[in-house]
């Protein structure tokens, strides 16, 4: 008997479905399958159902379903949320429009500031005031609220954000307002800021509540339709939604504050890397994903996925963007992917990206009318990709067009076509190296202590060169690397992040108060899970403090052990803080230390399948397809052995120069590098 665990990820063009067939006897994954169907806007749930039927999977057999969706980010970037009102503290309705006053495009005197999501006439104030300690300075005056709601009804408002000053310290006024609205106007959607964030900074928290309210009705409706569709098809398993923090969560929780899924997709690849590392006994990893238009990386330190609440949308060198205070896996993303275009500017400088040839016309090699050479074309030009096995043999690459495109590009710089193609790869690699440095060296981590997990269509193609550049000793190309993000969703636990700003000095005398705050937050986390039927035994809690030298702004995250905090414990935490601070910033101070944020990560374990062991096959020659001349840039143009990845068994070993081909990806093995295949079919490349 087979049970199915499935994950679907809705993309712009395709809806991916990845599922495990699980042997009920052994609990092992018998096979990993993938299917895709066309994405069907605006009824995205149809695409999901289509993918299941195309795969021939009966929803009745699916016991676990995780879903990644771009519904929230799409509603935000396309401005397709609903009409939203804001209720805030008297004197502060313009906070949303004042924002932080910054102008990143600083030579430009005609800068345009991002427009607030809620116009001024829908931003209303109510009397009542807290101070930073959470004490009521002026009582809440609820009498002002009914006329505001009346105006909102007349204006056609469908959703209301509530954000008051210092509600992170004491949310009672926000709760009273939200309860009052729900009582007298039950149809309207209400989001109060403390339900999403208990961190300070009023503009960021107000904007977070505003955008969350803005997308809430749309998201609730979509998830409701998907639930209905699944139920109609006899689905009886559990349905989870992929969150931005690298965990999954229930549909009920997601519907309430859907901003938590704003980066639903990208987070799952990082989580997959962490899950794979756990299975292989590796704790220090750099997850690296190259897709069509971007490359993304994130560092996993001692098994911990880095999560930040300083997430921004639409932030660029030209715009201040919008802050969203929701926990998001800390990913550095750059505009360099397989489809990124190599070009020469008016001053004779070569660049790669951020423009991308996209799916249409796509790289020049597609022969669909693309004339500007892309990174993928450069890899073809250097014969790292096999022109006769392009996209798994689906297309015969148009090499005449590719060569012509590089000849034209090279002519502008006095370079040959081949040199221009190498240039595109070098510049793309340099851009990616800089991104990788941002998550590692620039934060005080030594790349030599890390293993890179490379995935996505282009990860395997560039990872080995980048690792050599950064002295990363090992690269793992996971089995199923092209659908690795969805694989990550299938390996995920439930995860909720609770962060609370409560500034205090960190000294032995405050140890009890610190412990009490943690205990209170943990009770809240456990109660929330229990209310949804998730038992205490399944819940695992991790504590951390964000700390800084008194007077500083930016803090360092320090993990804290469970249980009560003793005086010796305080000293140990202080030492951990100083070490972490010194690693990141190179010095120590004797100044007093303060806590800014308390954080709890509450995981609820989900039964995970064991990875299946592949057949033994120590003789790599069995997978040898032949050889060809491949350009390894500074290492020269060499004869490289070409292997078929699907025929490599566990224990196989390969030495570079070599190329390992699979349908969705190509691994480039440079001279001197050595590859072994592990029990689960992952490639380990020693650099």
């Amino acid at each position, binding site marked *: 008997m087979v049970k199915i665990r499935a994950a679907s990820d809705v993309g712009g063009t395709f809806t991916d479905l990845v599922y495990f067939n699980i042997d009920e006897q052994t609990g092992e994954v018998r096979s990993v399958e993938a299917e895709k169907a066309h994405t069907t806007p605006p009824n995205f749930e149809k695409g999901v159902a289509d993918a299941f039927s195309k795969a021939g999977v009966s929803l009745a057999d699916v016991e676990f379903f995780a879903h990644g969706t771009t519904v929230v980010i799409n509603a935000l970037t396309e401005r397709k949320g609903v009409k939203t009102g804001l209720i805030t503290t008297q004197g502060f309705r313009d906070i949303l429009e*004042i924002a932080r006053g910054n102008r990143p495009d600083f030579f430009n005197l005609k800068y345009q500031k991002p427009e607030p999501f809620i116009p*001024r006439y829908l931003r209303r104030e109510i009397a009542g005031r807290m101070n930073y300690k959470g004490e009521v300075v002026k009582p809440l005056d609820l009498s002002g609220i009914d006329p505001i709601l009346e105006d909102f009804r007349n204006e056609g408002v469908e959703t209301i954000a509530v954000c008051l000053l210092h509600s992170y310290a004491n949310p009672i006024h926000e709760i009273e307002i939200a309860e009052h609205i729900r009582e007298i106007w039950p149809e309207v959607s209400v989001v109060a800021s403390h339900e999403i964030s208990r961190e300070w900074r009023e503009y960021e928290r107000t904007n977070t509540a505003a955008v969350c309210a803005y997308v809430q009705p749309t998201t609730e409706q979509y998830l409701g339709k998907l639930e209905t569709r699944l139920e109609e098809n006899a689905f009886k398993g559990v349905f989870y939604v992929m969150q931005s923090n690298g965990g999954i969560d229930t549909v009920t929780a997601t519907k309430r504050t859907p901003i938590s899924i704003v980066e639903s997709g990208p987070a799952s690849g990082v989580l997959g890397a962490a899950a794979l590392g756990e299975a292989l006994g590796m704790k220090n990893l750099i997850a690296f994903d190259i897709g069509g238009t971007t490359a993304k990386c994130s560092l996993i330190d001692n098994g911990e996925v880095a999560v930040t609440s300083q997430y921004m949308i639409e932030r660029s060198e030209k715009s201040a963007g919008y802050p969203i205070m929701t926990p998001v896996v800390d990913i550095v993303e750059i505009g360099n992917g397989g489809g990124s275009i190599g070009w020469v500017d008016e*001053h004779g*400088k070569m660049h790669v990206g951020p423009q991308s040839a996209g799916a249409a016309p796509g790289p020049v090699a597609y022969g669909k009318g693309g004339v500007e050479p892309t990174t993928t074309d450069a890899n073809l030009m250097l014969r790292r990709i096999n022109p006769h096995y392009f996209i798994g043999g689906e297309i015969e690459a148009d090499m005449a067009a590719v060569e012509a495109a590089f000849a034209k590009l090279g002519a502008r710089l006095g370079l040959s076509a081949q040199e221009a193609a190498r*240039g595109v790869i*070098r510049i793309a690699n340099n851009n990616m190296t800089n991104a990788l440095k941002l998550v590692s060296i620039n934060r005080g981590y030594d790349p030599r202590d890390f293993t890179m997990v490379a995935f996505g269509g282009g990860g395997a193609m560039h990872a080995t060169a980048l690792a050599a*550049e950064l002295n990363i000793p090992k690269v793992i190309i996971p089995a199923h690397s092209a659908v690795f993000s969805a694989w990550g969703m299938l390996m995920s636990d439930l995860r909720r992040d609770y962060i609370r700003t409560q500034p205090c000095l960190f000294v032995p005398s405050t140890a009890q108060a610190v412990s009490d705050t943690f205990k209170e937050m943990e009770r809240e986390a456990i109660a929330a899970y229990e209310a949804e039927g998730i038992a205490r035994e399944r819940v695992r809690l991790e504590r951390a403090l964000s700390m800084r030298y008194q007077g*500083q702004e930016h803090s360092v995250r320090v993990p804290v052990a469970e249980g009560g905090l003793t005086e010796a414990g305080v000293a140990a935490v202080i030492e951990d803080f100083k070490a972490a601070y010194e690693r990141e910033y190179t*010095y120590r*101070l004797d100044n007093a230390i303060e806590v800014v944020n308390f954080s709890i990560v509450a995981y609820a374990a989900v039964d995970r399948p064991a990875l299946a062991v592949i057949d033994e096959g120590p003789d790599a020659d069995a997978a040898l397809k032949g050889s060809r001349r491949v350009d390894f840039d500074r290492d020269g143009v060499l004869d490289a052995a070409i292997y078929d990845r699907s025929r490599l068994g566990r224990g196989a070993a390969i030495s570079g120069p070599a190329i390992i081909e699979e349908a969705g990806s190509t691994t480039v093995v440079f001279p001197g590098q050595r590859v072994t295949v592990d029990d689960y079919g992952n490639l380990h490349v020693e650099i």
Partner: protein
Amino acid sequence: MSSTAQELSPDFDPITIEIIQSSLSAITDEMFATMRRTAMSSIIYEVLDFGVALFNDRGELASSGSGIPGFIGMLEPGVAAIKKKFNAADIHDGDIFMLNIPHHGGVSHINDVVMILPVFAHGSLIGWLANKAHWVDLGGAFPGGISPDATEVYQEGLQLPGIKVIDRGEVNQAVLDIILMNSRVPETTKGDFWAGVASMRAGQKRFLSLVEKYGEAAVRHAMTDYIALGEKIARAAMTDLPKGTFEAEETLEDGRVIKAAITITDDAFTVDLRGNPDQSKTSLNSSRDATFVDCQMIFKAITSPETFGNAGSFRPIELLTDEGSIFDAKYPAAMSIYYETSMLLFDLLWKALAPAMPNRLTAGHYASICGTFMGGPHPETGHVHGIVEPQLGGWGASQEHDGINALYTGYHGDTFNVPVEVTEQRNGLMVDRLALNDAPGGEGERIGGKGILLDYRILAEDWWLTMAYTRTETGPWGLEGGLEGSTNFVEVVKANGETTRHAACTAIPLGVNDVVKVYTATGGGYGDPKKRARERVLEDIKNGYVSKERAKEIYGVDV
């Protein structure tokens, strides 16, 4: 995979040069990020009143990291000052120099402390790194060092005349002790000192790894080539500029008149400031270096705002000043409020060019840093705090757009205000209101952006306020028939209701329940108000941006 310098041809391949040049900006970006994360005072990490830069061995700016355009060109004269003072034989690997005297170059006022580190590769000087940041207090007659009442630089804080504070890696503890002893906030000062060191050492490490990888010759060549590219871009953009002489003048609030004449030819951008008033007896003076930065900023804005800036970008600029004038003040003139003088000039240059360049320039903005300095004991801890804050204001309208509401000045950039929730906790005061200022003014076919209203309530005795704003009497200028904007000022409302209005004041005492109310200006309008579309006026009325009465009077829209 190996990449060695030997493989490079003598004339260097363009790909390698491109990679080195993009690495130079990665270095200054990292220095900037490190400084921001480690600094102790909000004026650095939040207001971003700091900048970092990388120079070639000759001290020419190759790359800079800054949140503020006004700091891009400021550090080059600082490196020149060190090169002038020290013999090459006395400059060693591991040295760090400090300077802060505006009349000596590289700084704008005493509070801006510059640190400079020479970078050596295999024993030879290959470049320089510099870091400049606003230090909260270096002593002097006034808390925070800044006052419109200062008459000589001696009153503005401890002077650091290009001294070696770290000698071959060893801190000169005596010097550091003197600096800390002279500061009213030694802990913060110490933190900001080490933040500066950490930032430059991070940059040095990265710089050297670049040399290691590509070789000294290639890195030297890439820097020279990058500066040449900066010049090429600037000169190419000049061909599109209208040619001729563009003039403007402005009457200051004390009755003095300032004026500027800018002449643009095919290959020069000449700013003539001769004939301006003599240097002031107060601290409203700027150094020639600060004045030159104004010229750089306006030149960059009209030529190539979208690209990087380095020494080459500013080569076409020529500046003419009278020594001893307010734009080229001589030692020992006080300069702590230089930024308002520089701002006046920046606004004047902007005003001269705007009518001819509507594609690049808006009508006048609030044009005052509105530096607001307050301090006193925290009501909970008794710890004495100092607040140093510029204020947000309204920007001018343009031919395409309404002006921007609540933005920092054109002198600022990726500068952030301090959140109300943070300031209340840290400083122990209360903010009663932070709102857009709906004062009339700045109307036009396109309307000027709004300034702010910010009310600070003092919660302890023994507080003080120092401030000096400009544009307190005359609002920002309109364009093409757009109306003048409103003005910047402060009102102090004492607990007993007594109210005073200020354009400038020094250390006036404040106590419990006194309220400091900041008002900043609406920017200038663009075009005849009568041409503003009716539906836009109705929207403005609905949003409370304009009253019905004012709408009828100015736009002729009757509701």
